[in-house]
């Protein structure tokens, strides 16, 4: 089979993994090689679905001995199979990189023969890049579930980032939809990577990530975010990615969705930011009696409306973390407010002058004791319908697909975490 044909097949089957970030590594171009990593990542292009193309994202092969129900590459699917040789992978990567098409390689694979054999092949491709071509650009590799520690070690020393996708947010779903994957075959390597990263600076220097599929199984937002919180805390994950389920296979255990649940995916990303940058805990946002976000609101607004007794917050007095909890006030605005109020009392006017966006915030704050309207407006039902009204406009505004700029967090992710007005 021609390389061009292989590339079509193996890019096509790799595209459902949403992570693409090329950030977090500070690999330098040493020993007169080619390439370096940029700490904040670089986007090279954007595909028609609006996602950043930063890495050449391919599978080594889409043949697989496993039969995960949701996966296009499962053994029981009758699809065309292809397999790159390690040399072919290295050549495409180098030639794309020289032309500045890409920032590096994201290599994953179906499982051939057994997990370790597959890992061996991945290592070989990457080793040609690193040792023969002296490639110092970014490489992200997927670890194969069930791989041995030896192989994880070997791969980990060659790459910048590693990931093992959990994909299914509960044990039950895993059993049902990924019958060949043991929970431990996923969690053990994660733990091992976490511990090794701590000991060896050269091992997976940009850390590990994972991905969860949203909407293929019945888990609630509460369950999903709790899992993510655990991943950040216990496993030291750099990122948890959420991927709206795209129905590819027919199976009795899979829901028949017309469209991938993109809006829900977006809300989970927003909530994820609240966990990572805004000091929220999952149990602040959701609990047993409130298991899912109201998709029509952003999660912070949803939280605020469930916790009206925290509000209104006095802009001239509230501490930094209290300000951050106000819908519409992001990290940047909170900092601006903290700095400016040292010099003078803040009013709605002065906030506007400082370019603090008040669209959502105004419902939840007072400035020097004053509310923006008559205090009878301070009522969760009224505010909720006003917010949903604004949000709707935003959503309808964008033809039939939901306009989600938060779609795939990449470089922008970092920027928006700092400046984002959530």
């Amino acid at each position: 089979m021609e390389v061009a044909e292989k590339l079509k097949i193996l890019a096509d089957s790799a595209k459902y993994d949403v992570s693409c970030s090329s950030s977090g590594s500070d690999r330098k171009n040493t020993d007169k090689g080619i390439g370096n990593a940029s700490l904040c990542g670089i986007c090279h292009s954007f595909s028609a679905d609006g996602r950043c193309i930063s890495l050449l994202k391919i599978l080594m092969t889409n043949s697989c001995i496993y039969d995960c129900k949701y996966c296009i590459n499962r053994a029981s699917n009758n699809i065309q199979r292809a397999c790159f040789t390690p040399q072919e992978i290295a050549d495409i990567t180098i030639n794309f990189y020289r032309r500045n098409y890409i920032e590096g390689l994201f290599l994953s694979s179906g499982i051939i023969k057994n997990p370790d054999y597959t890992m061996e092949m991945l290592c070989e491709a990457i080793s040609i890049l690193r040792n023969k071509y002296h490639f110092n650009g970014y490489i992200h590799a997927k670890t194969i579930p069930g791989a041995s520690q030896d192989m994880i070690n070997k791969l980990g020393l060659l790459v910048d980032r590693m990931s093992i996708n959990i994909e299914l947010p509960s044990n039950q779903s895993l059993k049902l939809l990924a019958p060949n994957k043991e929970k431990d075959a996923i969690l053990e390597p994660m733990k091992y990577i976490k511990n090794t990263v701590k000991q060896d600076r050269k091992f997976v220097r940009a850390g590990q990530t994972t991905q969860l599929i949203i909407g293929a199984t019945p888990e609630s937002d509460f369950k999903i975010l709790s899992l993510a919180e655990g991943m950040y805390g216990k496993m030291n994950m750099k990122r948890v990615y959420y991927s709206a389920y795209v129905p590819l296979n027919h199976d009795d255990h899979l829901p028949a969705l017309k469209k991938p649940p993109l809006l829900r995916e977006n809300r989970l990303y927003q909530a994820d930011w609240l966990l990572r940058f805004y000091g929220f805990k999952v149990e602040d946002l959701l609990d047993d009696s409130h298991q899912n976000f109201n998709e029509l609101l952003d999660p912070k607004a949803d939280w605020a409306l469930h916790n009206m007794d925290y509000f209104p917050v006095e802009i001239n007095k509230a501490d930094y973390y209290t300000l951050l909890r106000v819908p519409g006030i992001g990290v940047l605005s909170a900092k601006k407010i903290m700095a400016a109020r040292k010099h003078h009392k803040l009013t709605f006017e002065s906030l506007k002058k400082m370019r603090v966006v008040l669209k959502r915030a105004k419902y939840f704050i007072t400035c020097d004791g004053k509310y923006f309207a008559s205090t009878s407006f301070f009522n969760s039902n009224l505010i909720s319908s006003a917010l949903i009204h604004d949000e709707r406009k935003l959503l309808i505004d964008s033809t039939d697909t939901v306009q989600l700029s938060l779609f795939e967090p990449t470089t922008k992710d970092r920027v928006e975490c700092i400046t984002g007005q959530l």
Partner: protein
Amino acid sequence: MHHWTVIDCTYLYDGSLEGILSVVYTCLKDKQIPNMVIEEENYVGNLFEQPKMISTNLDHSSYILEQIQEKVSDLALYYVYTSFLSSDKKKANALLHYIIYAFKYGFKINQMKSIDCVIEVQRIAKNVKYEAHRFSGFIRFKELENKFLYAEYESDNDILTFLADHFSDRLQQEIWMIHDKTRFQIALYNRDEYIIVDSKTIDLTIIESDQEDYYLQLWKDYFKNITIKERENRRCQRSFMPKKYWKYLPETKG
């Protein structure tokens, strides 16, 4: 600036950084600032005004640069250099005010967010850096017959030195050329260092290598195949990668 007189006059400069710095020097000496500084080429005159051309004086400009480095900070120098590369027509005026304030407040100048020209200069510099960052991804090289790499682009701001610095590290074992087609400048790199020359002075016959078409086609196919149809969102694509950049992005052409 209390002991300064603002005079009702427009100063013109020749478009160079040295030109702007000469204006600064003149203003410092006369303790007078014009109500506007603008590049000669962009000046649209009117009947009632008699603009004053400030001629560029290299002694004056290097004196100002030294003073900024000594009395203010390297960061201020960075802002001066970077915002000068902007295509923003208001940059000279903003820079004049910025430098005068910088001499007054010293290294603290960049925290003085209540002064308009500080915000303005920082904003202009940020836009230049942002465009340079974007282009570090959007530049596309072609491989030529002799294995040299060649790229061309058009940009709003003069970001060629940023790009040349970036690729001198990243592609340090290649011989490459990066051609700014807006400003007719080209950076030439020889595995060791780069120089920037006027592109009209060199012969630019481009003969692509045998492999070029093959990899270009692979890349285009890859680009097509990576889209998830169920998630197609052209609007989002264009907001990240505005059409004005598409001219030199081969993957956007079928």
